């Protein structure tokens, strides 16, 4: 156009210049017609308006909708839409109580003490209820064992109470189809069947889990007394039977002692996971981390871990060596021999051993081995050697001997020991039962909240035997693999609806009380037995087990304690506190036999294979599979691999090269005639040729959330144990076809890629050093601190300013804080596909970093949450001011202002903001978490966020507001110690502190001025309010690593 005008200026009669020569002479033309001097085009160029454009128009030619009609339609549509849209917030009417229960004040929470039944540790818990419904489970501070803390499973257990998949009524399966049946009919049929079985001399089998309740044990004995043909078979999928048997072999009698981890200066763990899944892990974490305190450099313990699988415990070791599980016996015998020689041979050890040859053969560091031996010898009496519960018995015998000659028995707890009410059934007992079932000698099988079809090795043939039993009953909360084959599936109360008592330690009795009336037509499983015991269906009462429990306590414990009060006072006080300590129990229960030297001399190393070895482990989140239907636990990242919603075969990088596989490929594991395929995950720190898989997945009947998730590891188990129940050597492994998408919340390329390798150290995200460095120069980290000056005047926070401190020496990465935050703040479950897109909604995460080599990485755990920065980069960029800063230092979020630009998340350097891309409650699993009664689990103090809204950690602002209101009520200033955030409350190692930064006496202030204290990414001047204490490794001075 420009050119044409210019051309036109050059030609005096531009518009008349239509000759083709002129057009041809022009440099530009707009169309072929113009080029061809079309007359129409020429006319168009001459006239501004087309012919006919100004002619009068005919209304009949126009569209049929007039303006009037359009407006009428528009107003009708608007009225229609406005009237028919229901108020989505309208969930019904709030009707005040007609007869208000005395203990409920709407808006005020009540707390009840009880006991967790997630595992056999029976931790004391405090249940927070609102308007009669439990919404949060935390530890009972008065319980002497767990002292106010519980694990991730205990935290998440409240979701199971409101699980829509819970059974609601008794079900009878006849002809393959289920139908509901009233409890009274079941009682009649059961009483009749039990009587007939007794009269016809047929066996009645009851399959139980580990019994840790004295009253339940008494009831079962009474049942047996009434029906003498009853036999009990019990199992605990991951148990300590091997340790128990080894102890008896070495000491003749008694039980393995509890260990005073807080008195240990040196700890050697052999494939042990005492911080994760073995023993009473909550107590172990507290005791272990009490000697890993940034404020107490003199009493730092030193932790050596020798393991084949990278475990949660092994991640926290000062020295870690990789060794396959079947070589552990050889290792400990070599170690025992070396220590024995240096102590002038108090024991006779058969065989020729050389620790250094062994180290060379297995690629262990000679230097580290020397340091280990010297350390054990120089800390005699204050060191402990611990063998993992899955290792063979001989390893435990050797470890007991090692502790004995090193004098480490001083660390055994002499005041308390664990109580065992019943031992697990052995192989012979199971085989007898199954043979009797097949032969028709068993008339009734009662599954007492157990699932043997899933848990027992398939070669027992339990499933086929069960089909031959005339009457099988499953007492269970949810349908499972076993209940689907039983004649009757009887729903039982959830733990929060049940009575019970637990005695897991000498003199410590904890009580379980129901905090909510059973939601459905369920019964306590003990009450079901009691009715059949009474022989009359009319005997059932709602509180019959409660009365039985009270009666047992009145006749038993109350009498033995000689209390100066009456029983009712004692009972109600015990229920109020949740735990009773009978100090008079003393040590009479604790017997330790004398050490048997012959048990050691009988030990000999076994020939080792060089082939692959399979190691089946306990899953930290699902346990033995019981919690497969719990979305919070499925979505909780694995503490080591950060994988969610799946299990996998963890292998070393070297093994991956050998098998020619990468992460997300598949491998097939064959042991004899048992075969299973697993997706591959390359896990740094795994020993070569060791395949590590975790159980608890692959369930076929675990509910809508948990079914068909992961791979069933149990198909590889066998009743014919060779090495150990969960360790198999001489397996065949080959690459399988296909791939599988494993979803992990954390990338792990940092070890291989030069650009990002050790980035967490280079950028100061993790600050670390050694205890020795800290002792010699406490300010050794000062030169690394990168706090920046600011041109702006700092905002003065009057009164309380909230801040948090996290001690990286204490944090072990257990994830209890993550789940506690999920429960407290109504975090939605999003599902595997959304996690894959990076949309996991956890406000709190534990970042896991590696440094060193992929074979022997050094691991760091760092809890990461909103840093509540003073100069938060997210606050400046919100176009609608939905995120702002409060006068007490919180970075606030106004959900109803947020329009979802996500600019704040983009700007956040810590990546702690979470966006609701969907209404996840609706989106996940076809609205599973919108069904009744899931909404009862929500904490009413925290908004449930919907789609399009950004959310993040609020420092539990609801708890801060509650404390502020209480302080106002009491007419006193608010103190930092008045508030405990959910993560702080849950942390078993007490790594998290929270309080008033303006109070110089508060722990959080002390963290800020501590020599080890630092802020993450301080150089970008966000002024975060979370202070981390740098991680110290307690390496020996002679080891300049």
């Amino acid at each position, binding site marked *: 156009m420009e050119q044409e005008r210019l051309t036109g200026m050059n030609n005096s009669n531009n518009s008349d210049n239509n000759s083709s020569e002129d057009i041809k002479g022009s440099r530009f033309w707009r169309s072929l017609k113009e080029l061809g001097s079309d007359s129409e085009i020429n006319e168009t160029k001459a006239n501004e308006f087309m012919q006919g454009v100004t002619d009068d128009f005919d209304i009949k030619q*126009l*569209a*049929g*909708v*007039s303006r009037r*009609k359009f407006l009428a339609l528009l107003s*009708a549509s608007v009225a*229609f839409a406005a*009237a*028919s*849209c*229901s108020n*989505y917030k309208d*969930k019904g009417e709030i009707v005040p109580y007609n007869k208000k*229960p005395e*203990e*409920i004040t709407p808006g005020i929470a*009540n*707390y*009840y*003490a009880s006991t967790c039944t997630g595992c056999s540790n029976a931790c004391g818990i*405090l249940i*927070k*209820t609102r*308007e*009669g419904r439990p919404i949060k489970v*935390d530890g009972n*501070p008065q319980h002497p064992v767990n002292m106010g803390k519980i694990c991730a499973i205990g935290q998440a257990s409240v979701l199971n109470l409101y699980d829509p998949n819970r059974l609601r009524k008794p079900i009878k399966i006849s002809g393959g189809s289920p139908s509901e049946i009233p409890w009274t009919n079941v009682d009649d049929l059961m009483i009749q069947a039990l009587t007939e079985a007794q009269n016809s001399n047929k066996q009645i089998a009851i399959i139980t889990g580990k019994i840790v309740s004295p009253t339940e044990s008494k009831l079962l004995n009474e049942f047996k007394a009434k029906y003498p043909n009853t036999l009990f078979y019990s199992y605990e999928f991951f148990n300590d039977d091997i340790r128990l048997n080894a102890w008896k072999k070495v000491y003749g009698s008694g039980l393995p002692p509890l260990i005073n981890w807080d008195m240990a200066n040196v700890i050697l763990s052999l494939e042990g996971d005492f911080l994760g899944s073995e023993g009473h892990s909550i107590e172990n974490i507290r005791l272990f981390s009490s000697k890993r305190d940034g404020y107490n450099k003199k009493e730092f313990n030193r932790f050596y871990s020798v393991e084949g699988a990278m475990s949660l415990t092994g991640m926290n070791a000062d020295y870690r060596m990789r060794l396959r599980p079947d070589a552990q016996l050889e290792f400990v015998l070599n170690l025992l021999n070396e220590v024995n020689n240096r102590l002038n041979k108090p024991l006779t050890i058969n065989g020729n051993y050389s620790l250094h040859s062994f180290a060379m053969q297995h690629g262990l560091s000679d230097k580290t081995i020397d340091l280990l031996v010297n350390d054990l010898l120089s800390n005699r009496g204050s060191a402990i050697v611990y063998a993992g519960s899955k290792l063979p018995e001989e390893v435990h015998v050797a470890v007991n001997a090692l502790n004995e000659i090193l004098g480490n028995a001083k660390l055994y707890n002499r005041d308390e020991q664990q109580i065992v009410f019943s031992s697990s059934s052995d192989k012979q007992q199971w085989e007898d039962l199954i043979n009797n079932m097949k032969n028709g000698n068993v008339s009734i099988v009662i599954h007492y909240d157990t699932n043997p079809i899933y848990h027992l090795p398939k070669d027992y043939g339990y499933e086929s035997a069960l089909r031959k039993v005339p009457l099988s009953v499953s007492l269970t909360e949810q349908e499972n693999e076993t209940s689907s084959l039983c004649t009757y599936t009887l729903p039982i109360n959830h733990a929060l*609806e049940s009575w019970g008592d637990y005695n897991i330690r000498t003199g410590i009795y904890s009580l379980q*009380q*129901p*905090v*909510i*009336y059973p*939601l*459905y037509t369920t019964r306590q499983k003990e009450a079901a037995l009691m009715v059949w015991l009474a022989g009359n269906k009319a005997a059932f009462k709602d*509180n019959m087990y*409660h009365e039985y429990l009270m009666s047992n306590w009145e006749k038993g414990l109350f009498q033995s304690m000689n209390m100066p009060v009456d029983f009712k006072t004692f009972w*109600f006080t015990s*229920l*109020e*506190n*949740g735990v009773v300590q009978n100090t008079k129990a003393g040590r009479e229960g604790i017997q330790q036999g004398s050490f048997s030297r012959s048990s050691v001399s009988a030990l000999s190393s076994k020939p080792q294979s060089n082939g692959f070895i399979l190691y089946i482990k306990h899953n930290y989140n699902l346990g033995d599979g019981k919690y497969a239907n719990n979305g919070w636990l499925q979505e909780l990242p694995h503490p080591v691999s950060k994988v969610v919603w799946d299990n996998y075969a963890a292998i070393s990088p070297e093994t991956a090269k050998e098998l020619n596989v990468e992460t997300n490929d598949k491998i097939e594991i064959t042991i004899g005639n048992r075969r299973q395929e697993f997706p591959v995950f390359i896990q740094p720190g795994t020993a070569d040729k060791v395949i590590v898989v975790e159980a608890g997945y692959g369930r076929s009947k675990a509910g809508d959330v948990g079914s068909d998730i992961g791979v069933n590891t149990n198909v590889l188990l066998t009743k014919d144990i060779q090495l150990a129940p969960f360790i198999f050597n001489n397996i065949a492994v080959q690459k399988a076809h296909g791939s599988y998408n494993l979803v992990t919340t954390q990338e792990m390329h940092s070890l291989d890629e030069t650009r990002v390798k050790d980035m967490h150290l280079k950028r100061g995200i993790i600050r670390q050093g050694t205890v020795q460095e800290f002792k010699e120069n406490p300010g050794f980290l000062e030169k690394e601190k990168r706090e920046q000056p600011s041109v702006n005047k700092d905002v003065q926070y009057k009164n309380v300013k909230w801040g948090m401190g996290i001690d990286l020496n204490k944090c072990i990465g257990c994830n209890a804080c993550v789940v506690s935050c999920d429960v407290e703040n109504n975090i939605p479950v999003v599902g595997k596909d959304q996690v894959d897109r990076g949309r996991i909604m956890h406000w709190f995460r534990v970042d896991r970093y590696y440094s060193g080599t992929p074979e022997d990485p050094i691991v760091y755990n760092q809890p990461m949450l909103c840093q509540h920065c003073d100069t938060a980069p997210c606050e400046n960029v919100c176009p609608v001011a939905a995120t702002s800063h409060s006068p007490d230092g919180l970075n606030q979020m106004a959900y109803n202002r947020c329009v979802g630009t996500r600019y704040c998340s983009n700007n956040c350097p810590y990546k702690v903001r979470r966006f609701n891309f969907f*209404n996840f409650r*609706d989106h996940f699993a076809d*609205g599973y978490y*919108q*069904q*009744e*009664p899931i909404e*009862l689990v929500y904490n009413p103090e925290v908004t449930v966020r*919907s789609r399009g809204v950004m959310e993040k950690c609020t420092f539990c602002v609801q*708890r801060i507001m*509650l*404390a502020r209101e209480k302080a106002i009520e009491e007419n006193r200033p608010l103190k930092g*110690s*008045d*508030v*405990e955030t959910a993560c702080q*409350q849950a942390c078993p190692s007490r790594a998290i502190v929270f309080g008033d930064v303006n109070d110089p006496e508060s722990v959080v202030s002390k963290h800020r001025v501590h020599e080890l204290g630092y802020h993450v990414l301080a150089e970008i001047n966000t002024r975060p309010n979370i202070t981390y204490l740098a991680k110290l490794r307690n390496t020996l001075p002679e080891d300049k690593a």
Partner: protein
Amino acid sequence: MQNKIDQNKTNPSGRIKRRIFFGKLTKAIAALALLKFLPIRFFSNYSDNISSKNKITVKVHPLAVKYGTRKVNGNE
């Protein structure tokens, strides 16, 4: 749609007759009323398909004993 002048429905001026208007209004109100009582998920963010027979009653257990009067958050 043609903008026909239907003498049965419109006045000579072209405006809709009063009875026709009220007839349409009545139909619209009836349709609205019907929609209001139907469980239409489209208009609601949450499912209303909860059968009354499956209603769950939350009731505090009458025998539960509350935890002590000491604080449960923060230090004592």
